[in-house]
């Protein structure tokens, strides 16, 4: 059952991912954004399969919920349609494809050769409680740094979006 779900989720995630970046039918950013949302969702499904329930929730909430909405807002705001009118640079596409496929190949080969510890032996249960403890004990420092980071982001967004400059 889980295996079937894995195949389903991952296939859908990859398909949606593909449609995000290289939709053969449309190059509308809105379509891309929507497929990205779908990818996020299927990924969340995979997270569930991995028993990372908290992360799956966060994925839906933050990514699919917040980030993607932000994207859509901006797309609508900017009313972007231009890309469609432009031609592909064949050489660029080929080079890009080759390098990306190369990366995929190398990664795949490396993964094949490597046998990471614990393969086939999934044991960890999604323990939100434990996760919380870790976050606020062991990982307190990064957590606090991230809070500063968020402050910076806020500040930055304000600075970049304020209407008047003075």
């Amino acid at each position, binding site marked *: 059952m889980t295996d079937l779900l894995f195949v389903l989720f991952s296939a859908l995630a990859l398909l949606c991912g593909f449609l995000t970046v290289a939709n053969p039918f449309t190059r509308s950013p809105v379509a891309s954004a929507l497929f990205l949302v779908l990818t996020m969702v299927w990924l969340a499904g995979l997270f569930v399969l991995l028993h990372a329930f908290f992360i799956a929730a966060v994925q839906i909430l933050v990514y699919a919920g917040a980030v993607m909405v932000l994207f859509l807002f901006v797309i609508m705001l900017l009313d972007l349609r231009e890309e469609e009118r432009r031609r592909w640079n064949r050489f660029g596409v080929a*080079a890009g494809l080759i390098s990306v496929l190369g990366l995929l190949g*190398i990664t795949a080969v490396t993964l094949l050769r490597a046998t990471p510890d614990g393969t086939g032996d999934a044991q960890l249960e999604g323990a939100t409680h434990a996760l919380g403890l870790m976050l606020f004990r062991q990982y307190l420092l990064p957590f606090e740094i991230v809070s500063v980071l968020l402050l910076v982001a806020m500040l930055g967004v304000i600075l970049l979006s304020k209407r008047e400059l003075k």
Partner: protein
Amino acid sequence: MRPETLAWIILLLPLASAAAITLLTRRQRRLSAALSIGAVAVGFVASLLLTRSFGALAPRDGEFLLASVRWLEVGPLTVDLGLRLDALSNLMLMMVTGVGLMIHLYSRGYMADDASYSRFFACLSLFMFSMLGIVLASNFVMMFVFWELVGVSSYLLIGFWHERASAADAAKKAFLTNRLGDFGFLLGIILVWGALGTVDFAEIQRTLESDPTALGALATLGGVLVFMGTMGKSAQFPLHVWLPDAMEGPTPVSALIHAATMVAAGVYMLARAFFLFDLPAAWPDCLSFLAGISALDIIAWIGGITALLAALMAVQQSDIKRILAYSTLSQLGFMVMAIGCAKPDAGMFHLITHAFFKALLFLGAGSVIHALHHEQNIWKMGGLAARLPVTTWTFVVGTLALCGVPPFSGFYSKDGILAAAESRPLLFGLAILVAGLTTFYMARLYFVAFAGTPRDSHVAEAHESPGVMLWPLRWLAIASILGGFWGIEHTLQTVLAPAAGHGAAGHGAAGGFFATLLAPFGHAPLAACLGLFATGFGFALAYSLYASAPAQDPLPARLGSLARWMRDKFYFDELYDVLVRVTHDAAAAVADWVDRWLVAGLLVRGTLGGVDVCGRILRLVQTGNLQTYAFLAAAGLVLVLWVMLL
């Protein structure tokens, strides 16, 4: 005064005078002249004084005094600033200072109108210093030092009128040709030092006398290299080309440097270092085809060829000074030949007498030129005997001495040379021929320039030169007449003959005046008679051609192209021009081209440009498109991964 002190005074006074004139008295003409003349006069007196302790006239065999200061001491090389005083150098000292004194005095008159009067005397003094340095040098390096200094003073004096292009060119040519000889000289010195570890004449002589093979396979090569110095300085074939051109200098300079003293330095060096040449022939393997030819052979033949060629060239010259210049060449060839025939005494003897009469002849020519306002073409002269009596009779004395008419000094010295060549029939014949040619061209000169009637208006207005110029003529004439009897020959034989491996008993041994007078006929009758015959024949020929005072030279018509070759100096200048052009100028052109286009161009500019172009091309990567950047980064990373992981 101690002889060493005297020697230092003789050497350094002219230098002091040159320095003083240059630095202090440039504007006071008379004072400059006085300083210069005073220096050489004191030198002359001191040389005479030296004879007391040395006795040029009563020499003691093989002895010398040395006054030296350590000039350089580096590792195994030590060089002294040494003055070697012996009969040979003493004799040379007297000759150089004596003739020099005459010419200095003469110059006061000759150069009186020149704007650079002081500079002239400064250069003369510098020359005297250098020449005396050669004479006194006790080792090869010192000799080389002064050798070069003589070269440069000669350069300065030939180019004295440097604003004249011809003079400047002649000076340059003289210096460069001399440098060719010096190149060999220096290498020879180094070679000898390399083998023997010393440059001192006495030590080398001692070593070589005890072991004639001490130089090993390089013996003859060393000798020939050192002889190259002579070839340059004494203008021996094939480096003879500079001397005739050197006549561009003021006439006193020609007399002093290019007739009496400097050009004789080469011969003096040969005599001084005779021990180096008189060695059994030995060649390194790579030059084995020369086996059996000794240094002396080469020297003799070079001298002979020079004598003949120069005499032939003299026959067809029309410039009075050039005729004398070729005559000088020819006589120098004689001297060298004599030394090559292992008779340094004969060569030196001729050197001394030649100094007297050739200085006399040049000064006489100078007097003529002075009187004719710098007209030098003999075909524009004629009938000078009437206008310039003193000049004429002294000139005649000089001519007779040069032609070897007894009892003038030239007869005795030339006879010695002919006698020396007797053992080599070919050279002997050549020498007799040259003797005849000498008389021919000198008689031609006399007949065309002095006898007959004036060919040009200048001659009619000519006046005899002032006394300050005539007195040196007279004194030199006396010296030319008496030079053969003074015992010079005897002195030289005593000093040099042992070195040449002959017995001390020479043919000029004291035996009364008449014995001396007729000595040549006694010990080498063939040479003396043939020499006289050749002289007579040459005179007769000249008389038949020129006594009738023709308006132009009848000889070219008779000799055809040979005469043209003679007039054009057998095209040596042209040949050398071509030689220099195909060697050095071509090398320079090639080097310059390579430097300009390959090294500076291709290598340097090419590298710079190549790097620049690389930069400009590589920069195109920075398209400004961030997607390109992203791609490049990704592609680079993939490349790295691929190399590192697969």
